[in-house]
């Protein structure tokens, strides 16, 4: 122990140490368990429990010097002394405490004895009090019973008085029309009266009450039946009647039939508006049909607006729907609400609960609402069907929106009702119908536009019949619109019309329209309705009707003016190149079409348009070729070629052919590009002369023909044919001017050839053909893609004429030239 070396003069710390050691000794230690264990192992620790004096002594003796041992011994002695004194102090203190405790206990013993006496006295007093109290209550018992009895009699008397007064009171209430009070009064008395009805006096009262209440119920019923009473009054009536044990079912029926009568009036009002509609309908139809079309350039002024006029004579649909909503739907809502208030949502009490009124009432209400709504819907649908004119779609959309919106109120009131979904159906049907109407309106518009174009095309022909002869195709531009103008105006009109229709239809899907978020309007309406049903159908219609021009007018070539064919062909081609994809992109963007179902791809439509364009252009070539062919054929067939005179002029028909070809060239040039032609020498007209040069003619017409050697005569032309490609006469043309003109000239010249082969010529007949062909050669080569084609065909014509000639002596080339240049 290190503290053994320190002197124990520092008082407080030392005392604590001593205390702790004592504590330790008596096993009260709460601290230093670790140290104890650490110390315990050491047998030389003088404070440890395992202290071994022998070991300790041996250790000291071995380690310390004598001086140190002496010091150690003195220190040890000092410690022992101080320990002894500490012990003595403790013993003394404890003794004092024990003495004082003994004194205190002795004093307490004396005090308790005194208190016991007082308690005994108290219990004696309490017993006396109890005895007195019992005595008093015994005396008061009788009087209390009497009072209670009296008060009971009093209450009974008051009740009796109420009963006796009841008839009078009820009468008074009846007079004052305070039905509620009367009913509540009667209700209170009813059971009692019922119970004591075997006593005559009560019975009298009961009968009186019965009569009065009957009267009252009668009055209530009367009031209920009366149309004039307000909803609140009504509901009060119903409540009272219910309390009067009126059968709820009957009441429901009465209530509903009463409401029915009012709806009847509403519906009849609506129907009355429909009544005059057939008149307006036909009026609208007439307006649509009239198509003045006086100004061909601007069909918009006349025919654009006309098909889009609506029947305005009656109320418009918005007013109609408004009226329907305000009168019918809102009062229907009101009736539903008050009905539910009365019969369904009322707290169930007493025996009423058992009758299961709400269920019955609810069933009745549904049937009632359904029948009424069905009638209303049929009216609305009739009205919507009258909306034939496609004037202002916004009106219809707004009307439908309002219609739909108001029906939502019913769905809130009547959660299970089919009415709102039926309403949506109607809206969907109306939208579908509308798309159909727009499509047919567009088709009508397209036809009208074409009629206008046709008139515009026909006009210059009549007024300036000579102009086309002299001016060649480029007819007076001031008076009538040219083809390109007509084309652009036509395509613009169509496009604008389509756009405006799209805009109108777009209203159906506007965000603020309640039904626009229905799945139909989000999906099917956009893709199947607008895109397929309207846009694609319209484009297909254009192609189809264009193709019809080729077929119906085909054989006789008459009814459709060729210029219209050309114009339509260009229109279809434009559609193929740009317009279709533009329109479809526009539609897709506007309607954000999500294609759940397969839709017609752009390419298919384009292919269709191109096919139509090709067909129209082919047909144009055929028709124009036919017109020229007929002229040539008539001129060859009707002439007596054997006996004709020496040619002095080019025949007028050839000039006509060249003029017509020129005008066709101009006409086609207005709409189609030039196209590629094979390079030709600058003096094309000259070059061809060599074909007919006299030296060669000599070979051809030389009397070398013998039956044994037929090859020689045809040698030249056969060699020519061997090296030239086969000519397809009525073959498809390309979309350019040169190809179109080549087609027309091919057809004309081939006809010329075939006709010549069927005739027999005299000398001058052949020469006339030579002159004519040379003239054609001079003018026609410039129109075609390959001038050799013209050379070949004309060569063939002259060759055939020479072969069919009785006296084949051809005309001198120089003379031909002179004649042609003069003519």
């Amino acid at each position, binding site marked *: 122990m290190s503290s053994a070396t320190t002197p124990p003069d520092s008082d407080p710390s030392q005392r604590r140490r001593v205390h702790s050691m004592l504590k330790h000794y008596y096993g009260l230690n709460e601290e230093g368990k670790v140290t104890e264990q650490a110390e315990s192992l050491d047998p030389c620790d003088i404070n440890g429990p395992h202290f071994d004096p022998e070991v300790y002594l041996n250790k000291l003796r071995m380690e310390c010097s004598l001086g140190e041992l002496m010091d150690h011994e003195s220190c040890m002695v000092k410690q022992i002394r101080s320990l002894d004194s500490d012990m003595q102090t403790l013993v003394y203190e404890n003794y004092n405490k024990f003495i004082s405790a003994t004194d205190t206990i002795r004093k307490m013993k004396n005090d308790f004895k005194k208190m016991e006496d007082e308690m005994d006295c108290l219990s004696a007093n309490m017993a006396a009090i109890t005895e007195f109290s019992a005595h008093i209550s015994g005396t008061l018992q009788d009087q209390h019973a009497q009072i209670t009895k009296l008060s009971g009699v009093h209450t009974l008397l008051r009740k009796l008085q109420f009963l006796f007064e009841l008839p009078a009171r009820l009468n008074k209430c009846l007079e004052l029309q305070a039905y509620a009070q009367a009913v509540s009064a009667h209700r209170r008395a009813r059971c009692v009266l019922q119970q004591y009805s075997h006593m005559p006096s009560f019975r009298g009262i009961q009968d009186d009450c019965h009569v009065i209440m009957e009267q009252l119920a009668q009055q209530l019923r009367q009031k209920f039946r009366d149309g004039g009473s307000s909803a609140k009054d009504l509901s009060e009536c119903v409540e009272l009647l219910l309390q009067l044990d009126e059968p709820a079912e009957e009441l429901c029926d009465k209530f509903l039939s009463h409401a029915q009568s009012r709806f009847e009036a509403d519906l009849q009002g609506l129907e009355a508006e429909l009544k005059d509609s057939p008149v307006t309908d036909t009026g609208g139809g007439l307006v649509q049909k009239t198509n003045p079309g006086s100004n061909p350039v601007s069909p918009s002024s006349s025919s654009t607006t006309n098909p889009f006029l609506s029947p305005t004579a009656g109320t418009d649909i918005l007013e109609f729907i408004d009226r329907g909503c305000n009168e019918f739907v809102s009062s229907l809502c009101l009736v539903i609400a008050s009905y539910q208030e009365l019969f369904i949502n009322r707290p169930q009490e007493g025996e009423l609960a058992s009758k299961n009124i709400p269920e019955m009432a609810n069933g009745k209400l549904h049937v009632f609402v359904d029948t009424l709504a069905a009638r209303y819907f049929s009216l609305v649908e009739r009205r919507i069907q009258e909306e034939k004119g496609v004037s202002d779609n916004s009106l219809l959309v707004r009307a439908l929106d309002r219609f739909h919106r108001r029906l939502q109120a019913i769905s809130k009131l009547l959660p299970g009702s089919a009415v709102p979904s039926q309403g949506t159906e109607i809206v969907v049907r109306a939208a579908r119908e509308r798309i159909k109407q727009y499509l047919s309106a567009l088709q009508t518009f397209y036809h009208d536009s074409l009629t206008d174009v046709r008139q515009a095309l026909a006009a210059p022909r009549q007024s300036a019949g000579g102009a086309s002869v002299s001016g060649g195709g480029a007819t007076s531009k001031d008076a009538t619109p040219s083809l390109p103008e007509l084309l652009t105006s036509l395509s613009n009109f169509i496009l604008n019309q389509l756009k405006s229709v799209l805009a109108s239809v777009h209203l159906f899907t506007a965000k603020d329209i309640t039904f626009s978020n229905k799945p139909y309007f989000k999906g099917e309406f956009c893709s199947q309705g607008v895109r397929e049903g309207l846009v694609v159908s319209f484009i297909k219609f254009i192609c189809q009707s264009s193709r019809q021009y080729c077929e119906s007018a085909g054989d006789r070539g008459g009814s459709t003016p060729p210029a219209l064919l050309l114009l339509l062909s260009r229109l279809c081609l434009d559609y193929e190149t740009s317009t279709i994809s533009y329109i479809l992109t526009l539609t897709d963007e506007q309607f954000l079409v999500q294609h759940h179902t397969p839709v017609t791809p752009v390419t298919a439509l384009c292919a269709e348009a191109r096919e139509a364009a090709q067909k129209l252009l082919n047909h144009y070539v055929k028709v124009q070729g036919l017109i020229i062919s007929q002229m040539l054929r008539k001129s060859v067939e009707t002439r007596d070629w*054997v006996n004709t005179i020496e040619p002095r002029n080019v025949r007028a028909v050839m000039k006509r052919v060249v003029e017509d070809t020129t005008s066709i060239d101009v006409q086609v040039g207005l709409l189609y590009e030039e196209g590629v032609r094979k390079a030709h020498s600058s003096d094309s007209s000259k070059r061809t002369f060599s074909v007919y040069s006299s030296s060669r003619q000599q070979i051809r017409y030389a009397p070398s023909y013998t*039956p044994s050697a037929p090859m020689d*005569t*045809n040698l030249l032309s*056969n060699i020519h*044919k061997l090296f030239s490609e086969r000519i397809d006469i*009525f073959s498809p043309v390309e979309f350019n001017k040169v190809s179109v003109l080549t087609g027309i000239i091919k057809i004309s010249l081939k006809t010329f050839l075939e006709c010549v*082969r069927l005739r*027999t010529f005299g000398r001058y007949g052949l020469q006339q053909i030579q002159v004519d062909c040379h003239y054609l050669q001079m003018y026609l080569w410039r129109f075609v893609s390959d001038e050799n084609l013209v050379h070949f065909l004309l060569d063939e014509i002259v060759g055939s004429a020479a072969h069919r000639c009785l006296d084949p002596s051809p005309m001198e080339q120089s003379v031909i030239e002179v004649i042609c240049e003069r003519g």
Partner: protein
Amino acid sequence: FVNKLQYLARIDRARALTAQTAETDAIRFLVGTQSLKFDNQIHIIDFDDENNVINKSVLLHDAGEIWHISGSPADKAVLTTCYSKTSESRVLTCAAVWRMPPEWESGSHESPDDSSNNPQTLELLCHLDNTAHGSVACVLWEPMGDGKRVISLAENHMLLWDLQESSTKATISSSATLEGKGQLKFTAGKWSPHHNNTQLATANDTAIRGWDLRSMSQIYCIENAHGQLVRDLDFNPNKQYYLASCGDDCKVKFWDVRHINEPVKCLEEHSHWVWSVRYNHSHDQLLLTGSSDSRVILSNMVSISSEPFGHLVDDDELSDNEESQQEDKGKEPLQDSIIATYEEHEDSVYAVEWSAADPWLFASLSYDGRLVINRVPRALKYRILL
């Protein structure tokens, strides 16, 4: 390509072609030449099927250039021609009945190229005198008749002749005249082989008319049968009401004369006027057309033929067939189709004709005098036969 053998023969400019109708053994075609300056001839083209050789004989026809030729159905030596005769600067087409000299066969065909040496001349039997009626367009023999009756179409007259005394005398037994606005003119005609040979169909301008020969009155008229001139007609040999026509609108149309408002079918394969249309005599689905686009087209019109439509070929029989392609096709009914387009001609083809002896053989004649003989493709032939 074994099944498409073709043989060429060169004649001079010619339009008239006919099969020798009464000849059922040899494959023989008659061609009439057109020449204004030289003696016209009738070329007799014999095709030797076994050796694939063409033999040509020439007979002189010195009356004029031949526009139409037609062989008697009863006597293979007798034929009619329509020829143009120029007199006093006036061209008139006449018709006559001729007999081929009996010795032509022994004589000239051994040296066809040398026919100018001593061509024999046709023997004139009689004229079908038409001076009162104008130019003759064609002469029609009574089909499968005894060679005693012919019809000639002259301008707007239709004349029925009786040939008597071995065809040396012709008398008009009855006649009819087409009345109407303008100058009406028959362009083509066909004597129907049905109804006991009492019906005739004619074409004028764009209309097709049917006539009853007993009363010589019109029985039907298909106005605007074609958009332009009707060039030729032919009756379906097996279906009595069916009729094919062709014309300048490049179309071939099929008519049921009981329903004349709409054609039964319409083909638009040629790119220029169609001048000639012929049903195969025994297999009426085979149709031959010739056009001035220089093409001859052989079509297979199963859907309107008398053959049972869509009849399936037995698989067993097909497996014998060498060509596997045919097997695939055979399993589905035959469709109307173009069998072949023959492009051997270099000028307008004005006449096509089936052989009278071999139903699988046909000839076509173009203006430059080229006669082409073709066969129906063998594969098709077997499919039709089996």
